């Protein structure tokens, strides 16, 4: 290898590493720098370098923590032809006790150079209760009649599901309670998959509750979630199991007999586990048929009604808005519009609804308002109709009817005539209601009978076919004119017979000589074959006619007739001109020519 090549290679080798080293990053991070004594710190080491194969970093001293591996994530990217590899090493650090600790420098050596991370300070407080702070911790709820069904074995961590009742009516609120008990640490946030609840109208209740409960001498942290269910139909309903996915330390793995349970540093990994509850059953009954009014709206719960009116004194035509509000506990969204009787002399329509759903105290309640607009048409004092709504009352266990107060209004001004059914309109259409249909047309003279023929009547043909035919005829004529202008010989040939015939027929009435007959015959030939009439020789004529496949007899007769005319020129003329037989013979001959075309 020449010296020059060695120099170039040395320069390249000297130049590349600094550029590569400039892209190497090695960092450490934690998700929190302060945790309770039973909390977990998630520690991540990230190494990024422009190489595909990276060495393993060296962990710092983590003696103050139990260390669990949470796995690693690797990402290789190609940008502008350059390879960049990024590896994230994840760990869950469980403190061994309260105090102030420092996670030291992690190290990695690449191409002979050592890279280190910054130290991270961690404060572990004396406070416990997992990640629940004092503000979040709540008192355990009083013992409820629900019967919990634990999911899985009670190994320091389990879930339960329950309903607050075993039997319910259709549309009666039922509370589904999910509880998560744990007496050990989790390495990640649990993932809750609630049942689908087919056959129920579902409302989530919040917030979730956290408290402590002691069972069999073991103190558990309990997380409780509640869901309100409204059965939509009767029958025995089965609620599918709830599931909770968790990650917990697995100290049983990583033994000498289980080499696959440890990561590259020999650290123990976490274990994903799915907890599952048992299915639940709920008997849903239809409200009793006995005593059920026909106008029962299907509503079940505890409700009351109140009403208000926008004005008690109005002029004719001015709208009066009555607001009916139903509030209480139950499925607010399913409250139907209250019924009311129609009232004469008023136009009525629905202006809108609004609802407010409350979940306070883990109970579904709230209010729903309906606005009805009454437009008076006559002056007087009126009692507006009473609104009513039938529902099944859970307090009294029987059907009840809510009714609004009687509202009396005074209408002043002149009355107007109307007779309309009730209707439902948008608010922006209110102004149109003040009007009425335009009045009758009273002039009944000259009434029109049913129209005549339909689409293809005489008018259609007169209007379309006649001009169209005329246009086609004109276009045909125009094309012929243009063709004749472009080709005069063709025109002469086409008109040869007609022109000659005209000359000869004129001869029948006027005095023409045999020379004129000969001239007509020669002109016919000239026109037909587009040649000059003067100077035609008989032999040439005979050749042309033979080439044109004129019958021999016709050809001979034509030539004989021309010869006879020539001879007649030198015979002393009688004053009578050409004999009519000659003209007739010439016309007959031309007709034969024309037929031979």
């Amino acid at each position: 290898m020449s010296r020059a090549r060695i120099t170039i290679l040395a320069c390249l080798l000297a130049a590349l590493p600094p550029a590569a080293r400039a892209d190497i990053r090695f960092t450490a991070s934690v998700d929190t720098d302060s945790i309770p004594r039973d909390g977990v710190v998630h520690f991540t080491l990230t190494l990024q370098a422009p190489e595909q194969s990276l060495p393993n970093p060296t962990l710092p001293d983590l003696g103050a923590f139990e260390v669990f591996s949470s796995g690693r994530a690797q990402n290789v990217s190609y940008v502008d032809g350059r390879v960049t590899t990024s590896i994230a090493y994840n760990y869950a650090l469980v403190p061994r006790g309260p105090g102030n600790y420092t996670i030291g420098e992690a190290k990695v050596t690449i191409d002979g150079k050592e890279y280190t991370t910054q130290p991270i300070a961690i404060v572990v407080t004396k406070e416990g209760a997992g990640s629940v702070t004092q503000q979040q911790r709540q008192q355990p709820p009083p013992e409820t009649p629900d019967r919990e069904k634990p999911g899985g074995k009670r190994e320091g961590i389990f879930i339960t599901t329950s309903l607050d009742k075993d039997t319910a009516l259709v549309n009666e609120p039922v509370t589904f309670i999910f509880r998560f008990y744990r007496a050990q640490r989790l390495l990640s946030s649990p993932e809750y998959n609630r049942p689908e609840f087919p056959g129920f109208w579902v409302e989530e209740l919040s917030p979730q509750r956290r408290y402590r409960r002691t069972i069999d001498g073991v103190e558990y942290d309990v997380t409780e979630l509640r869901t309100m269910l409204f059965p939509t139909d009767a029958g025995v309903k089965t609620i599918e199991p709830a599931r909770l996915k968790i990650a917990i330390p697995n100290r049983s793995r990583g033994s000498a007999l289980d080499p696959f349970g440890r990561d590259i540093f020999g650290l123990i990994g976490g274990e994903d586990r799915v907890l599952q509850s048992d299915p639940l059953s709920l008997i849903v009954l239809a409200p009793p048929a006995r005593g059920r009014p026909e106008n029962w709206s299907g509503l079940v719960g505890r409700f009351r009604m109140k009403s208000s009116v926008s004005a008690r004194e109005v002029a004719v035509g001015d709208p009066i808005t009555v607001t009916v509000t139903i509030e209480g506990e139950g499925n607010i969204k399913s409250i139907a519009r209250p019924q009311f009787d129609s009232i004469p002399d008023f136009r009525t329509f629905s202006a809108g609804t609004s609802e407010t759903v409350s979940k306070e105290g883990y109970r579904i309640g709230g209010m729903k308002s309906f606005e009805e607009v009454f437009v008076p048409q006559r002056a007087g004092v009126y009692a507006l109709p009473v609104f009513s709504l039938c529902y099944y009352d859970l307090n009294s266990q029987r059907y009840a009817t809510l009714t609004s107060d009687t509202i009396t209004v005074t209408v002043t001004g002149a009355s107007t005539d109307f007779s309309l059914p009730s209707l439902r309109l948008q608010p922006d259409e209110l102004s149109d209601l003040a009007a009425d249909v335009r009045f009758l047309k009273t002039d009944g003279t000259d009434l029109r009978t049913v129209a005549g023929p339909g689409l293809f009547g005489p008018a259609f043909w007169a209007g379309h076919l006649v001009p169209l035919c005329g246009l086609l005829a004109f276009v045909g004529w125009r094309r012929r004119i243009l063709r004749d202008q472009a080709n005069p010989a063709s025109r002469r040939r086409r008109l040869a017979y007609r022109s000659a015939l005209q000359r000869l027929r004129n001869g029948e009435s006027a005095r023409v000589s045999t020379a004129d007959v000969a001239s007509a015959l020669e002109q016919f030939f000239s026109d037909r074959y587009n040649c000059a009439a003067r100077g035609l020789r008989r032999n040439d004529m005979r050749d042309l006619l033979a080439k044109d496949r004129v019958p021999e007899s016709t050809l001979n007769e034509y030539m004989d007739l021309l010869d006879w005319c020539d001879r007649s020129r030198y015979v002393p003329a009688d004053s009578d001109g050409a004999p009519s037989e000659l003209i007739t013979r010439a016309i007959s001959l031309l007709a034969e020519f024309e037929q031979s075309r």
Partner: protein
Amino acid sequence: MIRPTINPRRAGHWTIAAWALASIGLLSESAHAQTPEVIFDAAVSAYQRGRFDSAAVGFLSLARAGIDDARVWYNLGNSHFKAGRIGSALVAYRRGLRLHPRDADLQANLRYVSLFAVDKIEPVGVFFLEEWWRAVADRISFSEARTLAALAMWCAVLLTVGRLWPGPRPRVALWLVIAGWGLWLSATGAAASRYARDVQRRDGVIVVARADVRSGPGDSYALQFTAHDGLSGTIQRTDSAWHFVLFPNGLKGWIAAADFELI
């Protein structure tokens, strides 16, 4: 007074109309030979006295006897509306508009009565050109469009002949020819559009308080939804006494023919 020419073949209808009016007290039984004007005036009188059902019978008998006049349909619509029949009123107004599409009274009453339809549905949007074309085509009746098409044809033919006539040809002549044929094409299209809508009669309105829309042509099929008086739709096909109707919001279903009156 100019009396309308009555088709002799419809003479029987006049008798039936007169009997119908006599039965509800609009005409005396001796007035069987009354003219359409008399029946018209009697129905108007009944309307003015607040006897809207009787007025509706009178105007309807005129229509069934062969009178196809926008005034009859207009008054019939008013009578139906005052009697509380929203759908039937809409049918009558739209039949009147078929004859006089630009009649301001018919348009106003149709718009007003439409407010009382129970089902207020959002129509499916159409391509803007189609919407524009419908608006244009709705401004003229079928007979007007047909006459306009014939005149446009004559105009286009004469302009074309002028353009082809031997002699000097101004450049504007070509544009006049194109405009003439364009006018003919538009008028013919409008006529075809009105023919499809008016003569073939595919549009209709629900004329009962509640009409069940089912998944098949029969009462045994599942109920899809319930439509109400005044909701319009377009028939897509018919099976015995049931129509398969497309509603403006895109919903489709089978509806009993008796509940759906064609326009």
